[in-house]
């Protein structure tokens, strides 16, 4: 019996394999986000293995299908296309792989105009509440990693840190960086699921390459995932070897690659955006992360653990927070002016209303911070235990408000700002900013 089993294993291993799991798309025509001068006569999909029962749709912005029935030619799927007028088009395809699984995908192209990215393909419904929550948690995680590292390196510089404080700071940084990685993957999958418009079971076999490699959002996901994996390694090595110096490159990487969000958000692609708006968004994001994450670190890692050290840390953080808040406000005001072309947009659009709520919460957090800065700080040297306890509670309250601000920031990031005055040149500039069409050309 054993020999038979062994022989069967050898035979199976030696047998040639005609196919291997589900089919993989190798190339397409029209190319991903291609800008065609004239209507394509066909749509072609080249797979790495034979596929069956192909379905190809060429949808215009109204959802009208312009494709003729698709057919397979070996490992290639071909579908004729009716003559297309100028416009943006979405191609949705499904094929039956040799293994019996349905493989699906989506990409976009334009006829005589730049195509929209696949994240704005026809049928994609845009961010959901789940995505808002995931993005909020992502912002909290980002604030934790950037804030705890910044707090450790700036506010606690030169101080002899008790073991418990070090431990909590590393725990906060680790929680933050793991959160950024995990929530980043989750956010990417949720966005892809929305773009592909597939139930979960079929989404698992969806081709994500057009989104990961052909959009700013996807490229930001790749670059930030790799950077934060490196940040995780550096934080871990700093803890393992007791070398806080390794936290410096970790912080620089985290701060630098947080720009991935700014380079793929409204301030990079929406009308009116420029290098300045990208820079302002990055400054806004990093300053807010340092402020909120630093505040949480002050409470969790120092105030609740080592109140004696807390006084010095409080004073240092108070100075740093003043600068950070100035940066947050300056960048935020500039971005509001860019995003809202008219003052009335503040109360007549959903984006403006959310921004108003966010500004109110920011004002509350600032007022709270001002009380700490101007009233609490001078009394700290002579403060008793009861006063310090109340300050600790007050800091927790300020942190909670600041985390609430991040929720509104997440909703704003996922929302569409009011439209700018449009012109044909704007439209082209907008589409041009969305990314290259070099994918699989």
């Amino acid at each position, binding site marked *: 019996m054993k020999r038979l089993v062994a022989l069967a294993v050898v035979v*199976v*291993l*030696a*047998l*040639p*394999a*005609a*196919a*291997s*799991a*589900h089919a*993989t*798309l190798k190339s397409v025509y029209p190319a991903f986000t291609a800008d065609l001068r004239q209507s394509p006569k066909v749509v072609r999909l080249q797979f*790495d*293995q034979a596929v069956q029962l192909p379905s190809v749709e060429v949808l215009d912005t109204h959802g009208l299908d312009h494709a003729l029935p698709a057919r397979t030619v070996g490992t290639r799927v071909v579908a004729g296309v009716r003559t297309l007028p100028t416009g943006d088009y979405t191609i949705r395809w499904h094929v039956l792989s040799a*293994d019996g*699984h349905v*493989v699906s995908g989506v990409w976009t192209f334009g006829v005589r105009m730049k195509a929209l990215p696949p994240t704005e393909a026809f049928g994609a419904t845009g961010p959901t509440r789940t995505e808002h929550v995931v993005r909020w948690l992502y912002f909290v995680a980002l604030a934790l990693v950037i804030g705890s590292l910044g707090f450790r390196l700036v506010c606690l510089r030169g101080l002899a840190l008790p073991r418990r404080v070090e431990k909590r700071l590393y725990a906060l940084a680790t929680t933050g960086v793991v959160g950024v*990685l995990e929530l980043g*993957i989750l956010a990417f*999958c949720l966005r*892809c699921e929305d773009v592909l418009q597939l139930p979960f079971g079929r*989404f*698992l*076999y*969806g*081709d*994500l*390459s057009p*989104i*990961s*490699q052909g959009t700013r959002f996807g490229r930001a*996901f*790749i670059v930030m*995932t*790799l950077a934060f*994996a*490196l940040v*995780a*390694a550096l934080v*871990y090595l700093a*803890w*393992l*070897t007791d070398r806080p110096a390794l936290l410096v490159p970790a912080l620089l990487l985290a701060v630098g690659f947080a720009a991935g969000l700014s380079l793929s958000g409204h301030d990079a692609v929406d009308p009116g955006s420029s290098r300045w708006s990208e820079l302002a968004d990055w400054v806004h994001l990093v300053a807010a992360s340092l402020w909120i994450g630093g505040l949480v670190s002050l409470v969790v890692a120092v105030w609740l653990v080592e109140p004696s050290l807390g006084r010095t840390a409080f004073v240092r953080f108070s100075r740093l927070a003043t600068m950070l808040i100035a940066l947050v406000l300056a960048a935020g005001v500039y971005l509001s002016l860019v995003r809202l072309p008219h003052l009335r947009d503040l109360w007549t659009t959903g984006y403006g209303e959310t921004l108003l709520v966010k500004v109110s919460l920011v004002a509350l957090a600032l007022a709270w911070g001002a009380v700490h800065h101007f009233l609490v700080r001078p009394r700290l040297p002579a403060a008793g235990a009861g006063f310090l306890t109340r300050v600790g509670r007050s800091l927790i309250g300020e942190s909670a408000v600041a985390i609430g601000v991040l929720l509104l920031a997440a909703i704003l990031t996922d929302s569409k700002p009011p439209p700018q005055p449009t012109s044909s040149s704007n439209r082209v500039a907008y589409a041009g900013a969305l990314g290259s069409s070099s994918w699989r050309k």
Partner: protein
Amino acid sequence: MQPRSEMVHWFFATGFLLLGLILLSQAIVGEAVWARRRWRVYLWPSIAFALGLLMWPVMTFFTNSAIHMLAHGAWAQALMVAGAAELGLVHGKLHNRLWRLATPVGIFVSGVAFLVHEQNAWLFARSAFLHHLIGWTLVCGSLVPLGLVLRPRSTLFQSAFALLFVALAVMLYCDRDLAPVFGHLSPLAGPPHR
């Protein structure tokens, strides 16, 4: 720009082979001799951690299906966590013996990820067969480091742990349907893929 899929598999197979041979050397000479040079005890956890870090680019760049991406993410994290926990233990930063469970748990999770990401039956193709084999080898093999937690000085468990990685390396070398290093198996297999 992307390296071919089989090259990535061979790269990681080489990493696991190195890992297996180091562990085998440790099992043969015994812990006392192995630890005479301090850097040696860091060797295998460091390699596991580095392999985990190097798995992230594979996860992010090979996104031709969501399940593929998620499975590679699971392997990246399992390798990093297992390597980090072992490094913390040998360096004296971690003292709780429960951290030793990170390796068996990581291996178990990796095995499950292999089984979940391979949706075909065992005999569908060679790669399907090997994915199932690797998955079950890892799932069952996770009992070996678990045994090491209970009997850390057992030569039997140490050797089995080393051979687990050697076997994994061999299976990964064979995992592609077309592996020029083993010769072109059949024209029916078509062009290289996956």
